């Protein structure tokens, strides 16, 4: 498989997670910002989840609906295509990022427009759509507040829900003051770092753009196969602006976002808001079917490695993910390392299992991601669709190619353990040579003994003792 593109430059794949993380944990501002944000949201989530007496039942239903959908994905995709088409929409299929970008660029150019407004979308982030459109002379304006902060700051997203979580209010104010003018209406004079003032600045900056732009690009949280309906959950109203005002709407959606029936929303509209922003319901949810209110509507269905993940019996559960980001917010590793260390638009525990499966285990970074976890299991506990992230991590660790020395050592151990007489001989040799075992290992292996003691090798093995004494009788 050619490497799937996941919205990060190739240079980001050169360094392993540990070396990225080592750099990130030295940034005390970043750690402070992350700690504050993740702890706030953890408490909010716990309290609104605790309110529902049937949370576990909703979670089990959510898990099963997604598994059933994935098992029958071909049938439901065809059903969706028929329903969207019948409702006046146009459906396009994209096998990878390149194809999706080509389709979208072609659709935008066909309208004659050179500017588009965007609703926050992981799928378009993943395929690097903004950069691809820029290469075709089309400017994409991000309209979600956090995405705007990332775009203005020429930065990378570091969280699924709140891409600018690594920035605090003072940093955001500075970005707005310095960069808004280059992209459109400048920040107001005397802008403070009050969140309310910052939100107002974003409102003013984007207002005229919403009123005049003719083409919008979105993703979707859910697609309903039975009815052809798309669903977008948001908070600010920028989503509604993009979905409602422009004449042409193009939605790029991963094929795993399907739900079979309209009724299934009763489960997911409870699971998602409580898990992601820790609210009983997010401020705005929009649903539309095909060409709503006379709009021109295009749906681009995106594979980009998803069918590869689907083929893996253990790993396919990652496709149940509804991108709530609850696993990021509870993860002790994410809280300290931050999102950028994961080198993908999908950071945190879900990213550690999704990225290496989508992109393959070829790079140094992707091989190291399954180890970006202490396997504490907090991510599994909060996951609204019960993805057993630790199980997939362990499975991926087994699949990733290990360093040469480790492979040689394991091969040697395997050879010894394979035959009892070899093991006995090795144990006798170990017992005789025990006083030559050093306290610390030499060379690169010293990293292991820096934090661990080498276990004492006993004078005699249990089997040896049994043979010699007849089980203690002699």
């Amino acid at each position, binding site marked *: 498989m050619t490497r799937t593109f996941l919205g990060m430059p190739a240079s980001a794949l050169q360094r392993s997670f540990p070396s990225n993380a080592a750099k990130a944990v030295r940034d005390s501002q970043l750690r402070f*910002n992350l700690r*504050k*944000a993740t702890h*706030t949201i953890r408490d909010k989530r716990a309290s609104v989840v605790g309110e529902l*007496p*049937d949370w576990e*039942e909703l979670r*089990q*239903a959510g898990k099963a609906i997604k*598994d*059933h959908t994935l*098992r*029958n*994905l*071909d049938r439901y*995709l*065809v059903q969706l295509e028929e329903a969207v088409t019948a*409702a006046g929409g146009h459906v396009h*299929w994209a*096998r990878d990022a390149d*194809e999706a970008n080509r389709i979208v660029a072609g659709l935008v150019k066909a309208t004659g427009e050179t500017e588009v407004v965007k609703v926050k979308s992981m799928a378009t982030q993943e395929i690097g759509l903004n950069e691809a459109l820029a290469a075709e002379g089309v400017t994409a304006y991000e*309209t979600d*507040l956090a995405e705007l902060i990332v775009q203005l700051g020429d930065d990378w997203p570091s969280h699924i829900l*709140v891409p600018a*979580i690594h920035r605090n209010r003072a940093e955001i104010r500075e970005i707005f003051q310095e960069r808004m003018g280059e992209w459109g209406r400048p920040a107001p004079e005397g802008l403070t770092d009050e*969140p309310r003032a*910052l*939100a*107002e600045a*974003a*409102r003013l900056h*984007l207002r005229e753009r*919403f009123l005049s732009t003719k083409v919008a690009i979105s993703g979707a949280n859910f697609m309903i196969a039975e009815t052809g*309906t798309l669903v977008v959950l948001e*908070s*600010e*109203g*920028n989503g*509604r602006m993009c979905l*409602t*005002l422009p004449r042409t709407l193009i939605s790029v959606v991963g*094929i795993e976002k399907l739900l079979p029936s*309209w009724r299934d929303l*009763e489960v997911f*509209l*409870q699971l998602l808001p409580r898990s992601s*922003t820790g609210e*009983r*319901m997010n*401020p*705005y949810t*929009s*649903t*539309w*079917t095909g060409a709503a*209110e006379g709009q021109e509507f295009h749906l681009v269905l995106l*594979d980009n490695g998803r069918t*590869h993940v*689907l*083929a893996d019996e253990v790993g396919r559960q990652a496709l149940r993910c509804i991108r709530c980001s609850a696993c990021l917010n509870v993860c002790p590793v994410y809280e300290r390392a931050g999102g950028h260390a994961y080198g993908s638009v999908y950071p945190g525990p879900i990213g550690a299992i999704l990225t290496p499966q989508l992109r393959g285990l070829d790079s140094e970074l992707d091989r190291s991601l399954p180890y970006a976890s202490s396997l504490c299991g907090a991510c599994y506990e909060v996951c609204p669709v019960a993805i057993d992230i630790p199980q997939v991590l362990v499975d991926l660790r087994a699949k990733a190619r290990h360093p040469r020395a480790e492979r040689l050592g394991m091969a040697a151990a395997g050879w010894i353990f394979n035959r009892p007489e070899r093991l006995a001989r090795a144990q006798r040799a170990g017992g005789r040579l025990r006083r030559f075992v050093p306290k610390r290992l030499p060379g690169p292996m010293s990293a292991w003994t820096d934090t661990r003691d080498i276990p004492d090798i006993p004078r005699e093995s249990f089997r040896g003792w049994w043979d010699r004494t007849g089980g203690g009788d002699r």
Partner: protein
Amino acid sequence: MNSRDLILARVRGAVAGAPDVEVPRAYRGVTGDATGGATPAGGDRLIDLLAERLRDYRAIVHVVPEAEIASVVEEALTRRKTGRLVVPDGLPPAWLEREPRDREPYDTVGDDPELSAADLDGVDGVITGCAVAIAETGTIVLDAGHGQGRRALTLLPDYHLCVVGAGQIVAGVPDAVARLSPERPLTWISGPSATSDIELNRVEGVHGPRTLEVVIAR
């Protein structure tokens, strides 16, 4: 092979032989509880819960007898000094009656012919009804039906005054999903526009209406 066939073939290859799954629906489903139902006490409980949950989102909420809707609307519009108000087709005229009858009517504008985005941006507020309201989550759902208008009407004006009628409040999300039609474009509204993007703290007021005022008719 075209991409459609390729993706479908990849999917079939990937899931071949995998077991199917039964969906357990042991969660609280459709309760059938709604205002205007058999027990007035049940209706009152839903009204109180909806009001409380909407206030949690910092919406302004009034619970009044149906006969008093017009006077609460008048009081709200006066308090806010609302100038021009968008009134969608099919809004009950009684909601906008003023006492005494010979008082000057509100400065209203309809949406037929359709207002441009710029026109809508220039008005001060919008008054609508709704399709369904969900007590447990404090949510109002608009389906672009009578008295609600197309989606942009409740988006561009900075003030949204919404009247929830008797019989429109349901207990939970499953009740609402069962009542709503996917063929209509829906907007689920839970409080005024807000963001959690700055340090994951909720702040009200970004692109949508910054003030949501709800009149619940008992």
